[in-house]
């Protein structure tokens, strides 16, 4: 009965979980459904949707199977979203905890650093970093992490500043508990729910960012990416719009799923809205 209550009370969480579950299944099933390299030419070029039932979503200008591309694109997006959100969360949480707990000049320094990264337009910085270091998955993750850790750091810092005034944290040094242990046992568990919720939103932002980069031709050429498919399909937009719209729909559903998951978790964890 708990599950039915979640479905009715928190439709965002339910829908987000469903979308994400579908995405994960497609990503996991991709190598089994399409054992060959999705970048191989397998059929005549520019088959339209439904023309050949072996290639239900058609083929692109080079005769690559669009359905296989979308399935493998799910793997790329999920991997990138998880890596970028994970790295940004880890770095942001570490710095936010230290700054909020230590305060003083450490805090001041961190806030200046956050301000600096907020001043440079994120997508422009990511473009700059990837253009210079080269378009590989590692560099794309690095670029997106570089632009998204400050928001996590700010979030964790503000939570830490609030927590450190609470009795159970204030009393810890008197009980001979070291600073590291205060951070690990008192602060981390309390900021974790917010941070995990935020990570889902970060993954959505990261996937949007990667799709933008690969749309501009700066995706990792060894991986199939929805943004890249969209960028290549753009030339045929007047004749075969499905080459643009199908990978586009995949991006929208993924980002929508992650955003809904984040909203839903937020709502579930917020005691004021839970009752």
């Amino acid at each position: 009965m708990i599950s039915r209550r979640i479905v009715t009370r928190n439709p965002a969480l339910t829908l987000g979980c469903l979308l994400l579950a579908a995405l994960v299944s497609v990503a996991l099933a991709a190598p089994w459904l399409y054992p060959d390299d999705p970048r191989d030419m397998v059929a005549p070029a520019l088959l339209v949707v439904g023309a050949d039932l072996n290639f239900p979503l058609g083929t692109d200008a080079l005769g690559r199977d669009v359905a296989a591309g979308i399935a493998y694109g799910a793997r790329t997006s999920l991997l990138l979203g998880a890596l970028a959100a994970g790295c940004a969360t880890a770095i942001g949480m570490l710095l936010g905890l230290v700054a909020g707990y230590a305060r003083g000049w450490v805090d001041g320094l961190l806030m200046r650093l956050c301000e600096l990264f907020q001043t440079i337009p994120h997508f422009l910085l990511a473009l700059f970093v990837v253009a210079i270091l080269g378009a590989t998955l590692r560099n794309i993750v690095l670029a997106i992490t570089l632009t998204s850790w400050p928001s996590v750091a700010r979030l964790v810092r503000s939570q830490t500043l609030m927590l450190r005034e609470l009795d159970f944290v204030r009393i810890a040094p008197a009980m001979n508990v070291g600073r590291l242990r205060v951070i690990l046992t008192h602060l981390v568990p309390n900021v974790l729910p917010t941070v995990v919720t935020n990570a889902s939103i970060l993954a959505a932002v990261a996937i949007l960012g990667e799709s933008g980069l690969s749309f501009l031709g700066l995706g990792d050429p060894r991986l199939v990416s929805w943004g890249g498919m969209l960028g290549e399909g753009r030339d045929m937009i007047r004749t075969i719009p499905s080459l643009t719209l199908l990978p586009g729909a995949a991006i929208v559903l993924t980002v929508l799923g992650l955003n809904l998951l984040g909203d839903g978790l937020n709502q579930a964890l917020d005691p004021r809205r839970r009752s």
Partner: protein
Amino acid sequence: MNAPLDATALPTASVRTELALATLEESAASSDRPMRRRVMWFLVRRITQAIPILIMVGVINFTLLNLAPGDFAQVLVGNAGGASADYLDQLRQSFGLDQPLWIRLVNYLARLARFDLGYSYSAHASVLALIGQRVTATLLLTGSALAMAVVLGVCGGFLSSLRPGGGLDRLLSAVAVIIYATPSFLLGLALIILFSVKLRWLPAGGLFDAIPPTTWSGALASLLAHLLLPAVTLALFFASIYLRVTRTAMLEVRGLDYVRTARAAGLPPLRVARRYVLRNALLPVVTIIGLQAGTLLGGAILVEVVFAWPGLGRLAFEAVFQRDYNLLSGVVLCGAVAVLAVNILVDLLYSWLDPRIDLQ
């Protein structure tokens, strides 16, 4: 910025009346002088504060430029079709590339301080001149997109908040959530398919028609027709954010005492919503505009590429593919300056909207 309201700092009612009378007695011209001075001091202070940030942006640019494979001399020699190692060394010496890293950093920053952003070897022009050529188009695009987004978002949020949980609220929220998840380039391409390819109402890209219009009014009409789709594309994403922010703020302000008083006094509900709730709910929207100035510029890159809009974003895109990193770093610096400027303007606007906030 958001200084807590200090009750003791507020003048009592009688003092306030005296102050009001005193202001009335003075002429309007002389009474606004201290305000003007305060704004000037505010600007001076904020611009001074921005300088260290810009220096750090310069350091980041310098670091990234140095991480690029090959140095400037190699690029030149490569473009010229090769040269001897001696000539390469000679070139390095003449450009100061043989000096230690920190001296080059100081030189780089000194050049930036003189507004010398270097030379673009792909476009054969100074980076500053290239940016100057493109900046108007980007300002036009981002400015009109921002205006559209504020109007659409605030109206949507206002309508949503009238009956929270109602049919209109649900519909608008669903639309906003989907638009928020849609990449701008996809939205742009979808609008091109619909309005340029299928309906043939609007041009798919560029700044003007291929045949240049001869009259001023013709040029303006052509410009507006070309501006509409890219501006809407860029605006919709931000409108979806402003809608959510406005709705939340409206619902928060709605429960405050002075609103209940106004309602209890028998004012019509729509008038209460407009004059008492909406005005105060606008403040968070202004905050968000400042926070998202960078996102707006970043979004403009993709929209400009999709619509072949000759602005800074397209310039950055061209620089990436020409491997013209000097030009790209110039655009990055320009973006940082723009974000800082927008934030200063937003703070000024904020203190004008909410007189409780001092320009401190």
